[in-house]
């Protein structure tokens, strides 16, 4: 018998934790290596969690990627591309990961994949959601946020048709991105590492409770929905001519109002935000995004409603 208004899902028994999707984002690399040696911390009675290093060559070189960004590589074209060894390293890896944890979009795909990332931006702990309709994920994120309160963990929703990208985690039925910052690339900060660890503990607790049959009542989840990407001002040769303004630097998740300082040119002039309404910027001054033409993204706050869920 199913409760009215309650959505049911199959037990989430196949779970993976990805580290090293970017080889220089050290919290995930370290946690996954730790758990590959000793799985005790991530074991639950009704959940089988597999820790996995997605980009070992990049991890070995302590670089974001070798040929191309793995976290953009899971496009349908790449996943079905012929060519084997001639393909860029990360495309080969994407196909391999899709074989093991997918295939993407099929019933055989893993239930949940957590993909661990760090950022140079002052984002704190951020969960990344790829679909506003993923009730399972919404309920999990609600659980995590409540479990770590008063510490905060915000939810970034990237459902934007143009800005959404083909992540490693997208192979799973319920992909969860976990981004913790600020941390420089190649550096392991103790506080950042521990914060990520605690979030994963609560995430696995949620899945365990769900698999045991607990019903999670309807809830609301505040999310930040990605609106647009803002690039640095550049000259005709494509060189950056201004930096994130000191007022905006480290101001992730704080309101950016029309007219507020946004960039500062190298000779000290201020460039103001020209948008028509207040936005909430994030991914401010992320190192890896200079080459992706992104100084920060704008978001708007939304409250999503998730109906009750229980296992089928």
């Amino acid at each position, binding site marked *: 018998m199913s409760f009215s208004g309650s959505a049911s899902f199959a037990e989430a028994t196949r779970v993976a934790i990805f580290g090293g999707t970017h080889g220089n984002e050290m919290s995930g690399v*370290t946690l996954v*290596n*730790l758990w590959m040696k000793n799985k005790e911390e991530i074991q639950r009675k009704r959940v089988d969690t597999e820790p996995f290093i997605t980009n070992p060559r990049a991890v070995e070189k*302590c*670089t974001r990627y070798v040929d191309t960004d793995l976290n953009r590589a899971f496009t349908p074209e790449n996943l079905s591309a012929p060519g084997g060894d001639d393909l860029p390293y990360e495309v080969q890896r994407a196909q391999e990961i899709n074989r093991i944890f997918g295939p993407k979009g099929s019933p055989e795909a893993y239930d949940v994949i957590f993909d661990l990332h760090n950022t*140079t931006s002052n984002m704190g702990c951020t969960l990344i959601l790829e679909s506003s309709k993923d009730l399972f994920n919404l309920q999990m994120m609600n659980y995590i946020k409540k479990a770590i309160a008063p510490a905060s963990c915000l939810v970034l929703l990237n459902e934007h048709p143009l800005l959404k990208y083909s992540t490693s985690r997208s192979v799973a039925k319920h992909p969860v991105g976990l981004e913790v910052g*600020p*941390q*420089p*690339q*190649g*550096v*392991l*900060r*103790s*506080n950042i*590492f521990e914060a990520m660890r605690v979030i994963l503990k609560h995430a696995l607790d949620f899945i365990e409770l769900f698999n045991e049959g607990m019903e999670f009542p309807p809830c609301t989840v505040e999310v930040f929905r990605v609106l647009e990407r803002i690039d640095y001002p550049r000259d005709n040769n494509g*060189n*950056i001519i201004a*930096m*994130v*303004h*000191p007022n905006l*630097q480290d101001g992730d998740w704080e309101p950016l109002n029309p007219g507020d300082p946004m960039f*500062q040119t*190298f*000779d*000290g002039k201020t460039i103001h935000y020209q948008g028509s309404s207040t936005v909430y910027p994030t991914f401010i*001054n*992320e*190192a*890896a995004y*200079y*080459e992706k033409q992104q100084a920060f993204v704008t978001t708007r706050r939304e409250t999503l409603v998730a109906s009750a869920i229980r296992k089928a």
Partner: protein
Amino acid sequence: MQIDAPHHTRDTPRKRDSVVQCSGREVLEGHLMEVDEVMCFPRLSRVAVCGGTHGNELSGVYLVRELLKAEKKVKKKKEEEDEEPVSVQLVLSNPRAMQQCRRYVDTDLNRCFTHAALNGSPSDSDPYEMIRSRELNAMLGPKGSPKAMDLVCDLHNTTANMGLCFIAYSDSDWVCLHLFRHLQRRIPDIPMRYIHFNVARKESYSLDSVGKHGFAMEIGPQPHGVVRSNIYTAMKVGVQHVLEWVHFFNSGTVFEGGLVEVFTMVKHIDYPRDKETHNITAAIHPQLQDRDFCLLRPEDALFQTFSGETLRYKGKEPLYPFFVNECAYYEKGIALSLARKRQVMIPSIRVQTEQEQQANERGFKSEEEE
């Protein structure tokens, strides 16, 4: 102050820019000399400012690029003001690494300036940075010769919370120490320290050792591959004050001596590592993270293992940590460096007058003739 006739001191024959002792008294060890003596140095006519020695340390990269853009304007203004303008050579040291936004392509450029590296016989299989160091040595040196730049200022960033640091090989290069003091006074809102690496001059390995005087200006914290506006601005203001000091110095200003606090490097400490994989097994402890230059006492927390255990400092002497959790040093086996704090007495200094300079040169010629 009465200036007696210059009296030549017999410096080591190698040094061409001899120090002229203006008061006529013997030069003693820095900290023993009398405070009213003024030491005189030749003009600093040729200064180099270098960025991008590590291609992903972006404040220096962007600052040198901006200075190159403004170069024409600056030169013209100087020509109008001075009779003999200071020539500022702006250098992007490692263009290939900059292009890839990496620290280096083959090997760390800032370790390629030893005499052995610079004078070894070139080969086709030389790493890119070895080839580049020889080019830079030809441009800014040759190291140890009279043709070398008078002053080399090499710009760096660190992920460590170090504020602005001068890093130099000598604790008796009065030009560098006076420069540091000048910046400290002119920019009081930025924490500033002078770090002394006690490496013998003939074993010096970094770009700044190519000049007759040289230092690295290291500013953090800034992630590699990122430019933070506050860090960039600090570097820009720092360089401006360096060039301003050089201008004052060359114009004859007497810079009064006194005490300067110097941090002398004592040792490094590596991360605890797994015996088989060599991977680190602990991170810098939260109580130490970001606390560069806060005294580390015996038994203070150093590392936190991944299983939560605290590892403590077992040294006997309290020392000052710096380069705490610098990204680039993981591969060099350095989690943090430790320094002793000292007070160094620096003499008053000023530039040699033309008369003194000529007398100096005549003195050298006659020494050579002998």
